[in-house]
């Protein structure tokens, strides 16, 4: 027995430490950038900027959270951007019945596409990348067909637009409240419920999870449906916060979501991940746009759209290279 216990204190991967260090890393980056921006730009920390920034980015955070779960299983969901568009279109069509109807309908749209994704992945055994790539095309096509190729009017008479434009206590925009609730839900799901454990287990080793008797398919189902549902919810925000169902919106959102998850330190190979860092990652990426807008406002340099994309790409490069260096160094110790 002494022999056995002697070897147990080997250096190894410490998940908790890893995740929290990652969160710390993103948090520090976020703090530094915020500090820089608040010193440089006058109105950066104004209530107006903070609230509109958060409200707009809530949509991205939602799909980022869903994406985080999917990626933790070792999968990917390329369809979320299109699903947001589809949901926004469908929701706009029912907006006259008020948010009480529209909200569940929007989520249902996402649940449906998520279910189809899950069926294709678990039943037809087609890898997530391909299954959701097809859904990316399919949902976009559906959105255009349903909307008749143009953005769809929402009702301004019902309480529908209140959801996207109104504020709780006249202070926090409802999208932000919704996003925070979704965040709390996802956090609990991952950290406190067996479901989250199974998600991580499957991402860690799907074969083993199967052999250990986990209902792998059921968990995968849950994950893709969750991702779909959050995209659907994001679509509701899009329709109600911008006053239209938009079949062409959401292009490339899946890539921003993936980037947010990765910047948050979640491994694309699955098995490890953090909800908190995903939230922070999404905010960090959104902040770049905000800062570029403020920078242009200073009038000293005006970044064209082209320079903006170069800067965004460059920022992503810096983040992932630093991250990679940290990871590789950790391995060396």
């Amino acid at each position, binding site marked *: 027995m002494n022999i056995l216990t002697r070897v147990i204190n080997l250096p190894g991967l410490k998940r908790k430490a890893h995740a929290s260090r990652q969160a710390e890393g993103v948090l520090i980056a976020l703090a530094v950038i915020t500090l820089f921006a608040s010193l440089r730009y006058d*109105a950066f920390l104004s209530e107006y900027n903070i609230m509109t*920034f958060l409200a707009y980015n809530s949509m991205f955070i939602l799909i980022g959270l869903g994406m985080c779960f999917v990626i933790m299983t070792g999968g990917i969901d390329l369809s979320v951007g299109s699903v947001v568009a589809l949901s926004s279109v469908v929701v706009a069509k029912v907006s006259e019945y008020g948010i009480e109807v529209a909200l569940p309908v929007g989520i249902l749209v996402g649940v449906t596409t998520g279910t189809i994704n899950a069926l294709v992945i678990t039943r037809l055994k087609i890898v997530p990348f391909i299954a959701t790539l097809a859904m990316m095309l399919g949902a976009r096509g559906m959105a255009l067909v349903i909307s008749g190729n143009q953005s*769809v009017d929402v009702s301004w008479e019902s309480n529908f637009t209140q959801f*996207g434009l109104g504020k709780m206590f006249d202070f926090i925009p409802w999208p932000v409240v919704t996003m925070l609730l979704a965040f709390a839900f996802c956090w609990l799901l991952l950290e406190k419920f067996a479901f989250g454990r199974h998600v991580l287990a499957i991402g860690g080793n799907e074969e083993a999870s199967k052999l250990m008797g986990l209902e792998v398919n059921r968990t995968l189902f849950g994950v893709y449906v969750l991702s779909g549902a959050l995209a659907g919810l994001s679509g509701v925000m899009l329709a109600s916060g911008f006053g239209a169902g938009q079949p062409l*919106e959401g292009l490339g959102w899946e890539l921003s979501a993936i980037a947010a998850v990765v910047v948050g330190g979640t491994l694309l190979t699955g098995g490890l991940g953090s909800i908190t860092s995903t939230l922070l990652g999404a905010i960090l990426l959104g902040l770049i*746009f905000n800062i570029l807008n403020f920078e242009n*406002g200073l009038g000293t340099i*005006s970044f064209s759209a*082209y320079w903006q994309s170069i800067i965004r790409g460059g920022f992503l490069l810096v983040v992932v290279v630093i991250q990679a260096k940290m990871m590789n160094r950790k391995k060396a110790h």
Partner: protein
Amino acid sequence: DLPTLEKKDRYKVGFAQTESNNPWRIAETKSFKETAKTCNWDLVYTDAAGSAAKQVSDVDSMIAQGVDVIFLPPREERPLLPAVLRAKAQGIPVFLVDRSVDEKVAKPGRDYVTFLGSNFIEQGQIAAKWLIEKTGGKGMILELEGTTGSSPANDRRKGFDDEIAKHPEMKILASQSGDFARDKGRKVTETLLQTYPNANVIYAHNDEMAIGAIQALEAAGKQPGKDVLIVSVDGTRDALQAIIDGKMGVTVESSPFFGPLACSTMKRYANGEKIEHWVRVKDRVFTIDNAAKYIDEAY
């Protein structure tokens, strides 16, 4: 109850461009940037990269920065409403440029100052009328649509199609999207020409696609301008050259040079003048008669 604009020497002006991926938009941005110098503006320029949602967020960041006035070419009619309403609520006058927003919810003179721009439907109509006159009301038409779902595509289609529908001997054989892009316009034309060899007119929603169509025709051994008549909208330099070369029939101008108009309209507003609800841009029609004259003005 519109927000007023005080008279100042120098204004902080927001210009929230929708995207910069085609010559027309680039020319529009350039026009605003040049006007900023001549009209004494501090320009706050943003680019929404084709996303209506981001454009709203861009406007929000301008509001946060406390601009005096916002020029907004809304990417789409409806999704930009919240931005217009929020700017108004923060006391910032908004001028819509080149596209309008849904009049049911936001009205000029109440929620925003005015709309500066052309009439996309009318552009389609003008193109159709020219065509009808030229062909005597006969023609087999292929239509190259703009980006599916975008308002110029929808309007230019509506204006054109409605006019054509009045003439029984004109028929739109096929109508497909070429995404406002030369390459896609070429590919779609190549395919449609195979299926409809009898087509003798091509109506493109913008000049880039029209140029693509010319290339497709030439590759298929047909003579653009003779075998197939080409009608388009925009008035780019390449299109005017094509008209001069006899490859294209007409292009209806859709001018991107809004800067000077923006400057003068804003000055009028600051002076307390009442602004009409639609500051119309006079769109010219370029044909073989005047193309050579205007080609140096084109972008």
